[in-house]
């Protein structure tokens, strides 16, 4: 039997929530934000399924109310519908479990008693809940819309924390409570592939976005896709890799969304086609974003690589070559949107007419914090491993080696974060010195229009900013173009059309005249009588 109380896993998730939500508390929505934090506390520290469900629902509703201040009605409806769907699935799973166990307490749940069909049904329902929350492709519309229409600060919370609730639910349910259950392995196989397909499709969708926050929303979906894939392996090192990636991703998304919030505050613009050339107006923000995207791309020298490395080695250890190939493909494709993000905002040419405001100073703090943590994690990649290992041990897996904080160990090799950092730093400084000492003098071009332009001279109204066009070519590539069409949106639109037709039929009942209602009632009565006999 399990004795799952307030454990390190819950600490980890709640700690991350605190890290993200506390710096972003705003006076206007203070209560709602606190409510959200409370609901997360309830969710993470629950010791019975009932409490878990209450936390889950509270989280959904409180974020709905925060979202309501800025989002369109359609977005809100989509948000609430998808989340209700997920919640119903969760409720269904809980009800089924209760039916077999007779109790909702975690400690009373013994999955080995469940017959296979029930276990599979529960697993399927839980998958739906998890997939909706993490925006698996097809169920992702609400994610993108709500991220891009929330207030800039709340986007950060949504992406950094709320998207992780699904991950938490999965870990608690499958790795803690239902571990002994006889779930069909095929389900996990499907889940793994769903995760990686999600990450590939979302990556391509991210590349083709013109709006900063939509790009990041798709990027979040893609990153959660990796986590889902890796969790589906149901292995100890996979769990640790997933948790590490959760940690890193929270930091990155906090950094990136806050950075974008700053840019929105400065320029009042949200699209790459309206932005550009901010680097010399906001160099600090630029550097912070660069840290963010290098980590997001999973490059060594920043923390993002650590979790990518763990994910890859975990997949290697399971000999899941194709899955790993797909994950690496998606990860390599991510370079394009990472570059688009930094180019579209900070590089390229400034738009002509642009008045700039000042970004609130408080926006810098969370960014600096996450950037510092990302750098620290790059230097000491094993720093969180000890903690994650303890979680792993708690859930019954073997621990990872963290004897040297500089070295991240895995079964398939290790790397030394300090050596990487040090070598890069020395090479960078040496080469910079070489360039400084070179005979040739650097002459700075003052007018940004003084570029090599085939002998012609660009006019000031000529558009030279490639922000919109970057990634546009994907539409020409036969493998990728179909992925970029709005299949899921069309599907849901059809469904909503059918639903509204049906409800129109129902509503017509209310507008009937008295005679008709009486007639219908008589008819129904007769039918009932006939049926009774």
């Amino acid at each position, binding site marked *: 039997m399990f004795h799952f109380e307030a454990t390190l896993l819950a600490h980890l998730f709640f700690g991350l929530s605190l890290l993200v939500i506390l710096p972003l508390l705003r006076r206007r929505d203070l209560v709602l934000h606190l409510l959200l934090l409370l609901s997360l506390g309830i969710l993470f520290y629950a010791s019975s399924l009932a409490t878990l469900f209450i936390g889950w629902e509270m989280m959904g509703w409180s974020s709905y109310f925060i979202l309501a201040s800025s989002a369109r009605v359609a977005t809100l409806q989509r948000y609430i519908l998808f989340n209700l769907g997920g919640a119903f699935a969760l409720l269904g799973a809980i009800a089924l479990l209760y039916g077999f166990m007779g109790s909702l307490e975690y400690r009373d749940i013994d999955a080995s008693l469940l017959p296979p069909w029930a276990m599979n049904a529960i697993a399927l329902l839980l998958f739906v809940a998890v997939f909706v929350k993490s925006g698996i492709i097809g169920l992702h519309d609400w994610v993108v819309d709500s991220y891009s229409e929330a207030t800039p600060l709340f986007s950060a919370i949504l992406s950094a924390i709320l998207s992780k609730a699904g991950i938490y639910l999965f870990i608690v349910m499958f790795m803690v409570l239902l571990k002994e259950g006889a779930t069909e392995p095929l389900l996990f196989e499907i889940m793994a592939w769903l995760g990686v397909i999600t990450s590939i499709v979302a990556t391509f969708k991210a590349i083709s976005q013109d709006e900063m926050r939509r790009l990041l929303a798709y990027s979040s979906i893609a990153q959660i896709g990796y986590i889902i894939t890796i969790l589906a392996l149901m292995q100890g090192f996979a769990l640790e890799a997933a948790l590490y990636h959760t940690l890193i991703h929270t930091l990155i998304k906090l950094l990136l969304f806050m950075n974008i919030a700053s840019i929105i505050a400065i320029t009042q613009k949200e699209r790459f086609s309206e932005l550009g050339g901010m680097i010399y107006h906001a160099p600090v923000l630029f550097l912070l974003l660069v840290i963010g995207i290098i980590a997001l791309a999973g490059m060594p020298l920043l923390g993002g690589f650590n979790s990518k490395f763990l994910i890859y080695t975990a997949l290697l250890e399971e000999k899941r070559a194709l899955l790993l190939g797909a994950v690496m493909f998606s990860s390599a494709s991510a370079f394009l949107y990472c570059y688009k993000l930094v180019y579209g905002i900070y590089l390229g040419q400034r738009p002509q007419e642009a008045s700039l405001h000042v970004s609130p100073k408080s926006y810098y703090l969370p960014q600096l914090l996450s950037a510092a943590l990302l750098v620290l994690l790059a230097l000491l990649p094993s720093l969180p491993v000890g903690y994650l290992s303890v979680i792993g041990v708690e859930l019954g897996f073997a621990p990872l080696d963290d004897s040297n904080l500089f070295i991240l160990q895995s079964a398939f090799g290790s790397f030394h974060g300090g050596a990487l950092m040090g070598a890069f730093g020395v090479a960078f400084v040496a080469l910079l010195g070489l360039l400084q000492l070179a005979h040739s003098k650097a002459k700075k071009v003052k007018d940004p229009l003084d570029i*090599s332009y085939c002998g012609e001279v660009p006019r000031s109204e000529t558009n030279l900013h490639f922000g919109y066009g970057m990634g546009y070519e994907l539409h020409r590539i036969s493998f990728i173009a179909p992925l970029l069409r709005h299949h899921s949106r069309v599907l849901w639109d059809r469904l909503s059309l059918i639903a509204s037709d049906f409800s129109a039929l129902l509503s017509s009942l209310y507008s009937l005249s008295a005679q008709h209602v009486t007639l219908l009632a008589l008819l129904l009565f007769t039918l009932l009588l006939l049926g009774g006999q």
Partner: protein
Amino acid sequence: MDEGFIPYQQSLEDEEQSIKSTQSVIEQAIAWFRAHSMFVLAYGTGCGAIEMPPTFTSRYDIERLGVVGVATPRQADILIVSGYCSPKTLKRVIRSYEQMSEPKYIIGLGSCTINGGMYWDSYNTIKKLDDFLPVDMYVNGCMPRPEALIEGFVKLQEKIRANSSEAGYIQYRTRYAHYRANQERLFGTQVQPRYEENFAGMNL
């Protein structure tokens, strides 16, 4: 120098001597590298461009001298103005020249760059390129043969190695007002922007 016939070889050796006497070893080395690696801007301004492909390809293979074509002015050392220049072209040529980084040299290819050549009475070509841009080396003829162009490059190599203060780019810098005045006279109000004033000489 005595009057009369000086053997060609002798004149070359004299030049070599004079180069060596005035330059330090490092300067000589720098000049040597500059002379033996010449990046030519790919800009066929006029008909002379038709003899460039043979010069650059397997028949004459000027890459043996370290001459290669590059696409953008930023990377180029040498601008070949291959023949007549209409004012519209000249604007682009000046633009390209100003974007090249020093030291930079101009080869005027064909008679048209010297005096207008065939088009001495055309209303739409400039007659003397040197009024607008400092030409370092003229290769005359219509068309100059590839051998002539190669000879021009060899002569230019010598000039580069001499590293004299007469070099075109230094002239352009020191006598900019003169060139600019000529350009403004030709182009009237549609003159090119003076981007070169943006160079603050700032060393990062």
